[in-house]
């Protein structure tokens, strides 16, 4: 079969159609989990447990119950004693579809129908929640009858959860702590790495090859290897100078250390790719290495510096392990990931709290990611040996 042009699977209508379906399938699969917590975080707390988030956009039906007023308050009307009122404190939002007087049959009667409860007692509950209960004679009971009903609730979206979580669950504070950790831990390594990368790319000195190999080797060192000795070191330094061992300064430096191999590797391979003539002509003009670096290499390296900054930012923001080891668990040091982990333990079933907190945690990386995706991908492509 001779096929004229186009890509492999794109010939027939069905082939093309199949590709669209397949991609749509993957995209749906990948998006649904995140969508779930976003929708849930915006839903009313009671509705979250009453129905799945995927039904959030439709009215949900739920069975509720209420107690009628005491029968002895019934007023005489046309020879009968009648109780009137509304089951809802705020009528108009929910609509009743059916009601009943027994828990086992909560939808025995249709809304609006007059139910005969025996002994001449009647009950009518309307769609809007208004009810009329009739008795043949005056009642003495002070205990109102319990009624059950199925109500459809219109979808309700609210930002209440965000207010709760930000101001009373301590997420707001943790957000700030995360920023306090992340920004310096992103900025500090960049300069240190840039100078080292330039030296490793363009300066000749004994031991350079070994240093490059060391940096690449350190790229894959599992972080876990370093934790115990560093913790002991920190405790030692803390005792020596009488300062706390868990400080922001400590974690900034730790993240700098852990980020450096990747930074140097990424920047070096980019700088080494810059045209040699550029450096040589500058050197002939009498520029020192310092001047070449500041005036030529650094400005040209902007894209790769941005790549690294994004990586380091995401890495530090999303980190849990380093923060658990080097920072305390008090509210003044607990970062978002740590806070979320703590909430998972203490508020395990409170999905309005968990989903909202999770969304606040991921919103910053998502913004960074979407606005700077180009640099992020570039960094990924250049440095795909890093283990994360």
């Amino acid at each position: 079969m001779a096929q004229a042009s186009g890509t492999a699977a794109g010939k027939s209508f069905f082939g093309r159609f199949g590709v669209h379906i397949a991609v749509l399938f993957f995209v749906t699969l990948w998006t649904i989990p995140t969508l779930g917590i976003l929708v849930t975080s915006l839903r009313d707390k009671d509705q979250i447990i009453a129905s799945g988030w995927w039904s959030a956009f439709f009215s949900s039906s739920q069975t509720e119950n209420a107690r009628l007023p005491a029968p002895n308050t019934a007023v005489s009307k046309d020879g009968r004693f009648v109780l009137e009122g509304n089951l809802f404190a705020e009528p108009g939002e929910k609509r009743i579809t059916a009601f009943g007087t027994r828990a086992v049959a909560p939808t025995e009667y249709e809304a609006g129908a007059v139910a005969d409860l025996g002994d001449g007692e009647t009950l009518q509950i309307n769609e809007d929640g208004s009810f009329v209960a009739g008795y043949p004679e005056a009642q003495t009971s002070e205990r109102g009858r319990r009624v059950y009903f199925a109500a459809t609730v219109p979808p309700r979206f609210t930002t209440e959860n965000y207010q709760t979580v930000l101001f009373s669950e301590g997420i707001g504070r943790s957000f700030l702590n995360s920023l306090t950790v992340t920004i310096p831990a992103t900025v500090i390594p960049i300069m240190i790495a840039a100078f080292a990368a330039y030296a490793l790319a363009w300066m000749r000195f004994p031991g350079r090859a070994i240093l490059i190999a060391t940096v690449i080797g350190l790229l894959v060192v599992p972080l876990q290897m370093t934790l115990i000795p560093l913790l002991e070191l920190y405790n030692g330094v803390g005792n020596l100078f009488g300062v706390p061992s868990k400080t922001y300064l400590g974690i900034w430096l730790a993240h700098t250390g852990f980020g450096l191999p990747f930074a140097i590797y990424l920047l070096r391979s980019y700088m080494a790719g810059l045209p040699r003539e550029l450096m040589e002509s500058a050197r002939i003009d009498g520029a020192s290495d310092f001047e070449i670096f500041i005036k030529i290499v650094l400005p040209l390296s902007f894209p790769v510096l941005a790549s690294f900054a994004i990586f380091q930012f995401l890495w530090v923001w999303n980190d849990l392990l380093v923060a658990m080891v080097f920072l305390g668990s008090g509210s003044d040091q607990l970062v978002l990931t740590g806070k979320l982990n703590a909430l998972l333990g203490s508020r395990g079933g409170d999905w309005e709290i968990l989903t909202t907190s999770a969304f606040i945690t991921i919103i910053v990386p998502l913004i960074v990611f979407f606005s700077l995706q180009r640099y992020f991908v570039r960094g990924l492509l250049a440095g795909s040996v890093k283990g994360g």
Partner: protein
Amino acid sequence: MAAQIFSAILVIIIGVGGCVAYFWGANRALDMIFPSRGVTGGAAVDNLRRQGLIRPWLFIGPALLILTVYLIYPVVQTVILSFQNRAGEGFVGLDNYVWAFGDREFRSSILNNLLWLLIVPAACTFLGLVIAVLTDKIWWGTIAKSLIFLPLAISFVGASVIWKFVYEYRGADQTQIGILNAIVTFFGGDPKVWISLADWNVNDMFLMVILIWIQTGFAMVILSAALRGIPEETIEAAVIDGANPFQIFWKIMVPQIWGTIAVVWTTITILVLKVFDIVLTMTNGQWNTQVLANLMFDWMFRGGGDFGRGATIAIIIMIAVLPIMIWNIRQANREGGR
């Protein structure tokens, strides 16, 4: 709080200012001690040579210092610790290693880690490759890629919350609010507590799904770039020869990007070895889901409190990474002859 913001800003200024001051100052000092301008003949040449000897170390010094303190020293120290007792004082030889291989939980962690190592990199690479090929063919491929790529920006803890909600279980008589159980009950099945299904390590799969969900985007982006690097002619030639799409994929495309596939595979392998947050937040090693990184954390900082054993587990993770590290260095040496 205000004090915290203030101190953070102050640190940025001091940190950046300090770096600038160091690099600028050190270079200035070097130029003044061994001046190359304004001196004549032999002295200038001599001084230039001395500058050339010293300046690289000024550039690389701070990085070297930090790398030594934060990576090299701790790695050496951890090796030593692994031969010591729980307080890190007495030398106990190979006792910790002997203990490790006799410990039931350790062996179960090794087994789980092996499962993770077998399944996650393979699944990510395969799915990444398939999605990369598919999205290259359609007009909305870029959008699709962005959406699949997106979980890469989400923290493991955040992802754990997201997936815990997917797996959420409620009694069979209640409305299911977790989408997985909702789908299962929709088709007439019984809802299950997915992450506690310890038979045949089924629950491990439910944890792995999270990492696969995160990392497929990574594999996809890298492989997609590699696919674009394949010369058009090779594919056209295959089309003319009458190859079907599957043959083109397996026999023409895959062999040409084999190197990239290896890089993606190893990168994810390293990540898998260090996986910690997902297990900690989802199960904390209960129901037979323990992995090495979380076990190590247990021995180091929680209940366990035995630095020797913690260090031993760290060393074992390191040994698993070692071949990849050596391969990396070799690879870099081969291409970096500059």
